[in-house]
Structure formats: C-alpha cells, structure tokens
C-alpha cells in the first residue's frame, strides 16, 4: 500500500477578496518526487508558503503524518520534519559554508546554557561533533574543500547546492525545493537533475518540487500536480499530464 506522508485537504486562502488558493487537495506519497507546476500566478509559491508556515490557510487541513501543520510557525514546521529552499537563494552570506550547515544541525540539539557559558568539555565535544558532521555532509556533495569560505562568495550553482545541503542537514522527512533551476543554464540544470535524484535515493527522502523548467519536471518527477488560478486542474504521472487538454490550455491558452 502506498503511504502518504503529507496531505492537503481543501486548502483555501484569499488575500483581501482575491482567492489565491481554492480548494486545493493533494497528497505526497512516501519516497516519491512530486512536481508542482502551473503558469505564472497559479498559486504554486502560495501553496509552498502555506505548507512551510508563512501563510495561514483560511480553511482546510494540512497534515504531515499525524501532525497538523495548520497552526505551526515556520520554525516549528521545520522541527516536525519539513525543510525547504528558496527561489531567490537565502544563504547566510557572511557565514562560512560549514557554519551554514552547522546552524541547521544545531537546531536539533538541546543546548545547555550552563555548559555553553562555562565552555565545559561536554559543550566543546558537542561543538566538535557538529563540525565533523557538517564536514562529512559537505563531503558527500564535494563542498568540503570550500568549508571555510563565506557562502556568499560561492558561484551561483554551488550556492543552490549548499542551500539544498543546509536543508538536508535539518534531517527532514520532506524536502521542498522552490524553483531550484531558476537562473541556471543547460549544463547546470543537468547537474541539478542528478543532484535531486541522488539525494532522493541516497537520503530516502520525499521531495516536493516547484519548477518552471518543464523538461526537468517531466524528466524526473514521479507524479505531477498542476495548478491554475489557485485551483488544482490535474494530477498524474508525467505522461498523463503531457496529454491533459486542460493543462495544455492553461499553458498555451484556449485554441479558438
């Protein structure tokens, strides 16, 4: 039986009378790569922001396993197991590459003020472990050579990569990628494709991907959900979506 990990049911959100998201329901199954697509202004990013806790849905429900996400703030959403990246990369630019990762790792640890203040052995051990863990994670993505450079001085493609690594560091059940191919050229997109497939299998993750690049989505997604004007208009495997009349209309306009 297919186990669902995240389920949205009848989610609605309007901004001052404009319905940004209307009655959207879909499920993400464990270990799948679900693509969320739609033309500009379809409400993709809004759905993302509802899931990650920045917007509160007016009605409907969102559950991660048994946990209801509706009332959680973004930091709590992360704690229950959802990590995300951003369309316009949001790294901590002046922190070094490894510190970006350590920051994500340390959120999972209960720190003691006493030990940190007196810099006890226990505290120093924890710090050392965090760094080792961060470095070994970076090594998997061959970023370990750059560990101590400030993250803002990385080239664009590597910044994307680091943002994904940082999200992985918070040990999520579900990873949400918000237009990771934005601003990438052909060969960078190819690398990204491999990267996504790699983390999906290697970390046994469920991935939700918002993307504009149709080729990428059709290539790597297991299933696809299509939004248009805040409503879900289609759901299915890539081949079905390609043939779906409504989807073609949404993207190309009605043929008259």
């Amino acid at each position, binding site marked *: 039986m297919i186990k669902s990990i995240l389920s949205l049911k009848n989610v609605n959100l309007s901004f001052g009378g404009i319905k940004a998201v209307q009655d959207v329901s879909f499920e993400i199954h464990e270990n799948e790569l679900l693509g969320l697509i739609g033309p500009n202004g379809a409400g993709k*990013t809004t759905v993302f*922001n509802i899931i990650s806790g*920045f917007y509160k849905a007016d009605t409907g429900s969102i559950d991660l396993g048994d946990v209801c996400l509706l009332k959680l703030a973004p930091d709590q959403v992360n704690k229950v197991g959802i990590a995300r990246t*951003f369309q316009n990369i949001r790294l901590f630019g002046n922190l070094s590459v490894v510190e970006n990762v350590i920051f994500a790792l340390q959120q999972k640890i209960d720190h003691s003020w006493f030990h940190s203040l007196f810099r006890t052995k226990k505290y120093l051990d924890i710090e050392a472990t965090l760094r080792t863990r961060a470095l070994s994670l970076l090594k998997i993505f061959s970023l370990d050579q750059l560990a101590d450079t400030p993250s803002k001085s990385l080239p664009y493609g590597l910044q994307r990569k680091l943002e994904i690594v940082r999200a992985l560091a918070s040990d999520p059940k579900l990873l949400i990628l918000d237009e990771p191919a934005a601003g990438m050229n052909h060969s960078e997109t190819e690398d990204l494709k491999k990267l996504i497939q790699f983390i999906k299998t290697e970390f046994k993750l469920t991935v939700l991907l918002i993307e504009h690049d149709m080729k990428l989505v059709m290539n790597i997604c297991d299933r696809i959900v299509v939004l248009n004007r805040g409503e879900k208009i289609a759901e299915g495997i890539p081949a079905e979506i390609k043939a779906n009349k409504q989807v073609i209309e949404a993207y190309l306009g009605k043929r008259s």
Partner: protein
Amino acid sequence: MQEFLQHTLNGLSTGSIYALVALGYTMVYGILQMINFAHSEIYMLGAFAVYYVARFFGLNTPSTLNFIIGLLSAIVACGLVGFAVERFAYKPLRKTDKLNVLITAIGVSILFQFGGQIIFGADPKSFPDLIENTELFNFLEIPFNVVDLLIYGVTFASLIALTYLVNYTQRGRAMRAVSTKPDAAKLMGINNDSIISFTFVVGSVLAGIGAFLVATKYPKIDPMMGARIGMGAFVAAVFGGIGNLPGAVLGGYLLGLGECYLIGYGASTFREALSFFILILILLVKPNGLLGKTAKEKI
C-alpha cells in the same frame, strides 16, 4: 467648556507645528528609509537664522514686511542647511549599511545641539517681535490673536503648496517614483540624487516655517528647542504611517491635541513620555500607523 476649548485651540496650534515638522521626517523616511535625527536641529537653526537676520538688519519693529522677511530667512536658511547635511553627511554613506546613516544622523543632531550651545550660547534668547499680536476676536473669554491666525493660515497654505508640489508637478511625480521604486526611477531617467536632495530641502523648509511660527508665538529660543519637539514630531509621523504625507499631518494634530489635554488636565510632567507611550501602543496595535500601508516581504 471654556477650558476645553482653550486646550483644543492650544492643541491645534501645537499640532500645526508637529505636522509641519513631521512632514520632513516622513518625506525623508519615505525616500531613504532613514530617521533624519538632525531634522529637529534644522528646525532649531531656522529660528536662530531669523534671530540673527533680524539683528543684522535691525528688524525689531512689528510689520508685515518684517514678518515676511523673517519667514523667508527661516525658509532659505533651513533649505540650505538641509541641503548641506544631506550632501556632506548622508550622501557619502548612501551605499553603506543603513545603521551607519542612522548613527551619523544622531551624530549630526548632537553636534548641532551642543555646537549651538557654544556658538549661540546655552541661554534662551528673545525672538524679535516681527508682527503685532493684536486680539482679533474673543469667544467665551478666549482670545484669538493675529499670531494664532498666522499659525493656522501659514500651516494651511504650506500644506496646500506641498500637496500641489507632490501630486501635480513633474518633480512631485519624480519624488513619488523615487520613494516607491528607486531603481526603476533611475532607469526611467530620473536623477535620484537630485530628487533626494530636493526632498531634504522641502522637508527642511517646512521645519523652518514651523520654527518661525513657534518662535513668533513663544518668543524664547535656545539650542535645545529642536530636541524638545523632534521626537514628538517623529512619533506623529509614525502615528500617521511613516512615509505617508496626510498621515503625518493627521498624526501631528492628534499628538498636539493629546499633549495639550494632558497638560491642561494636570499631568504635565508626563508630557515627555506621552509621545513614546502612544508610539509603543501604535506599534503594538497598528504597526504601520493610521494611514500606512502594510508591506510584506516576498518569500
């Protein structure tokens, strides 16, 4: 009833001054997103400019001409100082962290306050009598004088002029463009630096008008007079919604009235804390002020 009316009238004239000064804060904030701490000192310098001009030309008899000369010298002096402060203290920092500009502004403000105490002397000076303050009429034993009329009249005229400038002229359109989208404005061929300069000058001129009116009504001026009104005026701007011109005027009048009722009904020692109290209350309840728009960061 009579007492209430008196406090209301006082509140309206205090409010007029707050409104004029608050406009300068709000305009600069709208265009540069910085609190121009030195604005209140530009206001103070306006009053001293009139004092020295009057002394230099020996103007000490009340007449309409002298009044106009006084008003014009406040306007010119404040415009020049506003221009200079922006050009020499803030402009070099345009590209750096906003915190640096804010710290500089505090520095300029303190420098003017204490530099003023050295140059002008710390003791209050008598402001020259430039207009005959005769009683126009009397309502419920409350006198309504020429100076009151002038405060309302000049404030009103200034607001009309500003509204016209901002809404119906080429420069006003450019000002609005720069304050909403500076980068786009630059691409459309607007010279942002000159518009920012111009905004400072206009704001400073309004402060100068305010200072001149205050000094005409309460003819004692000293280098700390700006510090006393500055924070209140800034709070008025936040109250109305920072960056919003009608908001600053509304905030100014509401704060002026509030303070005068507070003083009138016997809580004068708390006057200084009132504006901040209001401020904290607004930020809790309606952080964008009465007429301000909400802006959400794009994620």
